């Protein structure tokens, strides 16, 4: 178990100082596939490099198995990294690369060769064991980098955007294999990506980061269904936001009579109401819902469904999906008046961001 406690990182000092990480708290469980997700520059690599030991924290603790490892140099941490550029040693063969960590650690030479064979077997690279690492394709280098990091049996494997250099097809395949490998080994993976699809399909839990702060830590499902704030809702998937107010447990949306909410009992003042496009129902529904009227602004065909952009009477735009199996989808036309229902259960009430009010 890795406990990240109030970890912060400041680059530089004085007026030019830059806070790359601001007091991060995460507990990563044993055997978990944990993903750090966020836009470029949000501090994912910085956090990973601090766990690996390449960067010294400015504050906070990194507790691994009850011991603070924050000041231990990287070569004494039971943590290995798969680098984005792979960083294979070009003057060594595949087998020599994989043996490196074992040898540097002073493993009994009699145990090195069997371990190298075993791990090369696992990543299906045994047939290329004597190849120079510079003479391989991206996918092959990726496997060797993985084998090299796994060979010394680390407690945690760190992966910094390991798949970003691969083409889409290989990338999908490696996503699947990484996930399978992680499950089989029962090893803790901390995986960095800025690709939300990759994060959603692979992770047990995801930490969404932005500007050096943690926005939310949750499972893919609950990040999608219950985003903590507007940033998370927008970063993971697509989202509609409607301005509203909550008074005495009733939601007031422009263009609709007030409706009682199930989860909200108190008054919250101005809020943003979030709903995913695929949860907006065209026409009426038997569920408890808010109905709104609008006019179709644009239609974009995308195979299984059509992306509809609706201009509501109150001026905001709402995007929704119209499945192409139904006749309703084919019947829609530009400029047409349309009534939609927003099921109460699909609505998420988020705090209205102060930045919007300003």
């Amino acid at each position: 178990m890795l406990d990240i406690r109030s970890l912060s990182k400041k680059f530089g000092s004085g007026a030019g100082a830059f806070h790359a990480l601001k007091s991060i708290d995460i507990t990563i469980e044993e055997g978990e596939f944990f993903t750090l997700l966020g836009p470029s520059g949000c501090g994912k690599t910085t956090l990973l490099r601090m766990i690996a030991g390449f960067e010294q924290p400015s504050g906070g603790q990194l507790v691994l198995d009850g011991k603070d490892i924050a000041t231990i140099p990287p070569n004494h941490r039971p943590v290995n990294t798969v680098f984005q550029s792979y960083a294979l040693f070009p003057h060594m063969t595949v087998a020599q690369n994989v043996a490196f960590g074992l040898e540097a650690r002073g493993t009994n030479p009699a145990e090195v060769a069997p371990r190298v064979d075993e791990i090369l077997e696992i990543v299906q690279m045994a047939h290329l064991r004597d190849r120079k690492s510079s003479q391989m394709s991206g996918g092959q280098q990726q496997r060797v980098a993985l084998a090299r990091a796994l060979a010394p049996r680390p407690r945690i494997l760190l992966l910094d955007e390991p798949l970003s250099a691969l083409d889409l097809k290989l990338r999908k395949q490696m996503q699947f294999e990484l996930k399978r490998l992680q499950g089989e080994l029962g090893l803790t993976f901390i995986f960095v990506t800025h690709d939300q699809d990759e994060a959603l399909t692979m992770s047990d839990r995801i930490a969404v980061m932005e500007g050096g702060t943690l926005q939310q830590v949750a499972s893919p499902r609950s990040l999608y269904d219950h985003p903590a704030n507007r940033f998370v809702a927008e970063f993971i998937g697509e989202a509609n936001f409607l301005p509203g107010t909550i008074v005495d447990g009733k939601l007031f949306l422009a263009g609709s009579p007030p409706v009682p909410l199930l989860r909200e009992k108190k008054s919250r003042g101005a809020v943003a109401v979030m709903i995913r496009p695929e949860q907006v129902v065209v026409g009426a529904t038997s569920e408890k819902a808010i109905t709104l009227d609008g006019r179709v602004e644009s239609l974009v065909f995308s195979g299984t469904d059509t992306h509809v952009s609706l201009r509501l009477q109150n001026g905001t735009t709402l995007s929704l999906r119209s499945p192409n199996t139904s006749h309703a989808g084919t019947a829609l036309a530009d400029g047409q008046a349309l009534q939609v229902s927003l099921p109460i259960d699909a609505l998420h009430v988020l705090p209205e961001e102060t930045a919007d009010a300003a």
Partner: protein
Amino acid sequence: MAEKRFDVTHVPGAALIAGVTFLALYVPVLILVVNAFNGGDMAGQWEGASLRWFAAALDNTAFRNAALNSLIVAVSAATVATGLATMAALAVSRGRPVKGQGGIFIILNQPLLVPEIVFAIALMIVLARLKQVTGYQGLGYVIAAHTTFCIPFAFLPIRARLAGMDLTLETASMDLYASRFYTFRRVTLPLLLPGILAGFMLAFVISLDNVVVSSFVKSPGQETLPTYLMSELRRNLTSEIYAISALLLFASISIVAASWVVTRTKE
């Protein structure tokens, strides 16, 4: 890429200039080499091909001593210079910026800043006194002097090699339980080796053909190959001098070629 670029080879007369330059550079050398194989007694009068002057040169003790001295000086100076240049290159590109980094460059570029003859005279004055005080007259002075101007030549290829090296390789090594020294021994040094070899050979060749510093610094009776040739030339031009020059040329070419091959294959 279809864009037309300025292509210097299309300038009228470019081929001519190139041809003339090439001739000016290599024809005299070619004449020297041909003359080295002259079988006649008189230098410059062709009397059939022969290796007799090479044999005469190899039989000549003065030449052999001078050649041995040159070899000792070049090997020692190039070795020390390469060692120092490697450390300098590592310090400049690996350590955090040290105080007085600019100073390092001034030291390294001394041979470019200070005219060789000025440096030679200055050394002569200082070393004459030193020889008097210590009583030591050996090759050490020449070696030390050669080391100084060999350093920048050794430094350049090493520095270039280091600059092109991926820093994450060293990070990866540290990540894989390697200490700093283990990382240097198994990652940095092997990857740097072609640069170090190239630097060594360049320094070796530079030392091998130095005349100015050697003549001013050497003790009486000491000769390196170039100073020996100079003094022989002052007496008379023999075919043996051609032969010795040719030997020096072959040595130089083989070293440069070897260095080229080494850096090529190690890429």
